[in-house]
């Protein structure tokens, strides 16, 4: 049990007053940037880099770990309270979380999200401690065919969020796919829908789309409702923090399921935590619909618990992939990779030998950071919920300012500000005409992934389409998908027959 003694040494390093201070500073800072729409932990770490140059590497990385996980705890806070997730990782948890807040259960939603983030983070950190090298091997099992199968699987599995009307969901999905097409095509170099504007060559940043569609769209929608009867739709939170036993019993399996969905995604580069959070949401929604009295649509606690746990589990194993393989699977991981290099360290197979003190202190700081964040977040949940008492015009004015600030800070492009406003108006129009917003984001996230991997697979095989299904992983994913859909159809057909039989009897 080398890992345990190494980790013990790591804890000894972290649990000194100075290093504990860095953990707390990082956690607070991360939570703060997480809460603000648009600003993410990647940006925070980048801004901190020059400041931390004079620190010893261990102190710096401990702080970065705090920022990373703080951001993940923080981004759901603004999502749940104001329907304006601080980052794309919190979108899935926001859908039900905000509904909980609307029905006066803001504190419970926040607590569920914090505990979910804690469980996901701890479990994945434990896995990283013991299995980091084998986790890294998982990444090498995935080629373009497997990624494509995964994307297709996610498309179908997530279709639950398409919502009540299939057609409206599909329309929203197409909007998302269209937005995702903007930019220079990485495979051929052809420019698509850029109008010759160099600012659009890299496509529209997911942060711009998220903030526009969710944060600004919501602000405009709230502004448009002013003076109407619907204006006071928010019910102030009761302030009760503790989950009832019933709530806990609903949330616990969702936390664990979310964690298990999130863990493998940290290792494979499919663009961070968005896909697993949505998958967790889809899974919870489908499971709940099997039993009577599903709360989905009205603020289901599982809809918060699953995605939040999945998001943090992904972030945890993503750190494993970064440390053991030097593979940055998310924006924050990419910045951390740069940070390692700034200290003359190269994450990868030799890091554990070359800088074992740092690595184990960093891993230990994940655990410490997670505990600190839970302690910081749980008591603050009712306090955060008080934010809803701020008159909405101040609240939403603040959101707009911070959203625009966050967008400009990440890209320094005026065009992004124009785009975020335009997408905000689109988001408002979609809300006004009852189109669901989540499928747009799914299209934006999964569309390019599916397209790129499809074309990569065919380019490598020189146009031989059979490669798409010939790999065992891809074939398994497709089979599970077909079986699942078939099962669903049979279930529906049976339900309909039973219904008809019941009607016949009644007649």
């Amino acid at each position: 049990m080398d890992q345990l003694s190494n980790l013990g040494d790591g804890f000894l390093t972290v649990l000194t007053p100075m290093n504990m201070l860095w953990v707390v500073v990082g956690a607070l800072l991360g939570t703060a940037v997480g809460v603000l729409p648009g600003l993410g932990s990647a940006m925070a770490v980048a801004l901190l880099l020059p400041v931390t140059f004079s620190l010893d590497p261990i102190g710096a990385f401990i702080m970065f770990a705090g920022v990373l996980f703080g951001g993940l705890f923080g981004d759901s806070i603004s999502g749940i309270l104001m329907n304006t997730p601080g980052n794309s990782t919190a979108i899935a948890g926001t859908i039900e979380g905000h509904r909980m807040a609307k029905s006066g259960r803001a504190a419970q939603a926040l607590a569920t999200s914090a505990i979910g983030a804690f469980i996901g983070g701890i479990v994945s950190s434990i896995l990283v401690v013991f299995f980091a090298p084998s986790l890294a091997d998982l990444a090498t099992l995935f080629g373009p065919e497997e990624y494509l199968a995964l994307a297709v699987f996610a498309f179908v599995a997530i279709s639950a969020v398409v919502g009540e009307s299939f057609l409206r969901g599909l329309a929203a999905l197409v909007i998302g796919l269209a937005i995702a097409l903007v930019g220079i095509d990485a495979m051929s170099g052809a420019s698509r829908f850029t109008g010759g504007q160099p600012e659009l060559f890299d496509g529209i940043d997911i942060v711009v789309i998220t903030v526009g569609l969710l944060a600004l769209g919501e602000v405009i929608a709230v502004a448009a409702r002013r003076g109407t009867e619907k204006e006071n739709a928010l019910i102030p939170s009761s302030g009760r923090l503790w989950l009832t036993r019933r709530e806990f019993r609903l949330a616990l399996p969702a936390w664990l399921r979310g964690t298990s969905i999130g863990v493998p995604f940290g290792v494979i580069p499919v663009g961070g935590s968005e896909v697993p959070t949505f998958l967790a949401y889809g899974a919870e929604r489908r499971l709940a619909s099997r039993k009577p009295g599903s709360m989905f649509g009205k603020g289901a606690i599982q809809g918060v618990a699953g995605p939040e746990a999945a998001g943090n589990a992904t972030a945890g194993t993503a750190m494993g992939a970064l440390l053991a393989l030097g593979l940055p699977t998310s924006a924050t991981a990419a910045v951390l990779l740069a940070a390692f290099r700034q200290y003359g360290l190269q994450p990868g197979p030799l890091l554990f030998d070359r800088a074992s003190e740092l690595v184990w202190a960093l891993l230990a700081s994940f655990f410490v950071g997670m505990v600190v964040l839970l302690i910081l977040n749980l008591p603050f949940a009712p306090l955060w919920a008080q934010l809803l008492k701020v008159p909405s015009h101040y609240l939403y004015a603040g959101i707009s300012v911070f959203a625009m600030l966050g967008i400009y800070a990440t890209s320094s492009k005026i065009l992004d500000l124009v785009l975020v406003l335009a997408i905000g108006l689109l988001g408002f129009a979609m809300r006004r005409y009852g189109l669901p917003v989540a499928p747009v984001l799914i299209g934006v996230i999964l569309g390019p992934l599916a397209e790129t991997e499809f074309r990569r697979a065919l380019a490598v095989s020189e146009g031989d389409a059979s490669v798409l299904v010939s790999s065992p992983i891809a074939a398994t994913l497709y089979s599970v998908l077909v079986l699942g859909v078939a099962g669903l159809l049979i279930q529906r057909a049976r339900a309909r027959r039973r219904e008809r039989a019941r009607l016949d009897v009644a007649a």
Partner: protein
Amino acid sequence: MRKKRPALAALGVVVTLGLAGFAAVDASDSTTGATPRSKLTLTAPAAAGGGWDLASRELQQALRANSIVNNAQVVNVPGAGGTIGLGQFVELGADPTRLMMTGTVMEGAITVNASRVDLLDTTPIARLAEDYEVFIVPADSPFETLDDFLDAWRADPHGHAIGGGGLGGTDHLLTGLTAREADVDPAEVNYIAFAGGGEVMTALLSGTVELGVSGYNDFRDQIDAGNLRALAVSADEPVPGIDTPTFVEQGIDVALPNWRGVVAPPGISDEERDELIAIVTEATRTPEWEDALSRNRWVDSVLTGDDFGAFIREDQARVDAIIEELGL
């Protein structure tokens, strides 16, 4: 709630004072006319964490730690291979307190993206350092040497998938150059673009591509750990500390350094230019910069002023010719 008011008020006061302080400092700068020695802003035309960002922050650190410049800042303007940053930079006007990081990748992006402005629109200050690209295969690959691969490549140019960074970047350019030298039609090459060295590495390890092209540093540890095998490095002569032979040593006359350098906005006076050159030269002689070179395995390649300008002109023409052949 009532109890918290004093704390909140105090916080408000602190924040306001802080902001007012910044505003005052800013205002004083603009009234006295800032000089590069008092305040220097470096544009990194890439996202935080990218290669130019790293180089900018290393330079910032060298300037700051030795008080060569009182206040050195880095601004990220990512996008389109750096051409967004370039476009904004050229429009700044003759501001002698600004520098931008640039390099080989931007030359490719300027041509591929048909950018309105190019590096000759700026005032060249100094080339700083360069590093090298490698051709690399998984440890279990049948290709033991560069020749093994080239033979197979000539026999079936399209049948060997090659993974590297974005189109028009150094990885792609090196692939094109090598193809030309090895009598393979560059337009026939099956080049698969990935988002960076990390993705190229997993594509190699998962067997998606047969050959990877990326910066030597991205793969250094994987090579040392025996997971990957380097076939050739793009330096013009053997690099101390790198065991891999160069392309030239193996009979393929290709050398493609991935250089990094800084340029100033157009229209600054000769005195201002000379002052900036002096500042940057001074920074490259600091222990911090020495340290940055050895940590990042960059090779010192300082070239300043007009010599650097002439180098850019020549290098840009070479890059354009390769891109033409690659059919981008």
